[in-house]
């Protein structure tokens, strides 16, 4: 009986291993090899040199900073906006279902499609925002050509696309909170702010955590959006780690270093998501102790 169950799982587990585990192990090996145009695209063992190169690569560190900046900004924006939208959609308003569906539409669009769309919206000077700005008699905003602004434009586009996902998740969490808790709090004379602070947020914690972890992991691997919206520019100011690894493999044909970069990104992802989970757990335990 037992072996039959394992047999049922075997095909799925095999494919999962092939798609997730094998690549990561392959990178481990590949990151100890030089495999590039210089080696005739054949692997040559070079020990830890790729990792040394990574350590001394200022472009890697710059991209790390840019990826972190992008992730921090977009994930926190998405969480805040997502919570606001979820609270709005949780109200018993007319047309709630329709509104929910419409607000989810941006999430369903292919990232490359919507990135191309945003490129047009951010256009200088013909995009709608800059037309509006020009109508007010102000100078056009160089959304896609000023390093100080472009990364924020990318954050904006990402927020537009992924906030609906966060909102939907949090909405499910809100709807799982029993209504009598609020009624009890109202009987005790709690203000709306107090019941949000004391009931909603604590009970929403697991949902917030799931949304945070999932979004953080996805944001740290940002690729489609950056590649189509900015191509990493201007002057590499929006290049993400994933894009850098992609360029190394597909443009510079330096596979060994690309694998090292991918593993590096994975390590950063692991550390950050792990830290977020631990921090959250410690925090909720602290709150539990205080309460």
């Amino acid at each position, binding site marked *: 009986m037992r072996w039959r169950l394992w047999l049922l799982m075997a095909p799925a587990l095999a494919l999962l291993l092939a798609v997730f585990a094998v690549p990561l192990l392959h990178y481990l090996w590949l990151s100890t090899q030089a495999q590039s145009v210089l080696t005739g695209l054949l692997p040559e063992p070079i020990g830890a040199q790729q990792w040394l190169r990574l350590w001394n690569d200022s472009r890697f560190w710059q991209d790390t900073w840019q990826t972190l900046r992008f992730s921090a900004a977009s994930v926190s924006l998405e969480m805040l906006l997502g919570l606001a939208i979820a609270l709005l959609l949780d109200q018993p308003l007319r047309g709630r279902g329709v509104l929910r569906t419409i607000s989810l539409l941006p999430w369903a669009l292919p990232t490359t499609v919507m990135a191309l769309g945003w490129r047009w919206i951010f256009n200088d000077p013909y995009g709608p925002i800059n037309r509006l700005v020009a109508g007010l008699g102000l100078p056009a905003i160089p959304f896609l050509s000023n390093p100080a602004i472009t990364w924020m434009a990318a954050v904006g586009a990402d927020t537009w696309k992924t906030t609906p996902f966060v909102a939907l*998740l949090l909405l499910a969490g809100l709807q799982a909170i029993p209504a009598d808790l609020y009624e009890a709090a109202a009987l005790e004379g709690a203000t709306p702010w107090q019941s949000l602070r004391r009931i909603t947020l604590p009970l929403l914690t697991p949902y917030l955590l799931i949304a945070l972890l999932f979004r953080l992991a996805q944001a740290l691997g940002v690729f489609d959006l950056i590649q189509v919206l900015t191509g990493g520019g201007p002057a590499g100011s929006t290049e993400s780690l994933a894009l850098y690894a992609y360029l190394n493999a597909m443009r510079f044909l330096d596979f060994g270093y690309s694998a090292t970069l991918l593993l590096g990104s994975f390590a950063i992802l692991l550390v950050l998501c792990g830290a977020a989970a631990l921090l959250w757990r410690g925090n909720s335990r602290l709150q539990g102790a205080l309460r």
Partner: protein
Amino acid sequence: MARLLLLLWSLGPMLWQLVSSLRTSDALSGLASGGWTLEHYRQLLQGDPPFLTYLLNSAVVGVCSTALTLALAVPCAYALTRIGRRQARSLTLLVAAAAAFPAVLLFLALLELARDWHLANQLLALSLPYAGLCLPLAILLLQAAFADIPIELEEAALIEGMGLWQRLRWVLLPLLAPAMASSALLVFLFSWNEYPIALTWLSRTELLTLAPAMARIAGSSVYTIPYGAFAAATVLGSAPLIALMLLFQRQIISGLTQGAIKG
């Protein structure tokens, strides 16, 4: 008021694309006012290859990936709910971690796999990595659905003398239909939208799926002032998905929330 803002925020950018796609290039660049046209759509549809090819490719890959994912995920999810709590919990945890993993980090190794097995530029072969990447979510969803079916139903079938296949076919799968629909839609959405793997596996223009085709259009300079065409491509590329969303919003939403929560 807040609702209006939300509507504007969600729909505004899309409506702008729709309007842009119908304006003449001159109107878009402010050279002339007014001027409506279907020219951009004609250009796209008569391009080489016609834009519909990309949509068709995406649809083929999507359907194939969905079928493959379900075929693998259903037995796996069933076994996970029956194998005993301890093993199931650690496996489920791994699967949940895989569900959140950003797929882009895998592109290089998957590309090498494609080369080794001669899968590059084979449209249907894309279903393999897609199914692999979608399996975690599908398994989590279906596992939760299996767990919701009372075990007595299967035991009653067992006492009736039904074999494993008969129990699945006549008792469990009919009850699993809603969860299967949700997973199928999410897998289809993923395949339709996936970019990095399609980008690296496919190089022949007539095989491109929508996502890399869009990127290629974005990078090309075939169009003199291409934004009208861009917008038209955006509209054509989004329309099937928006239709899908509107038709199956309930299944998609329930799948999305269930998958994330049970994970």
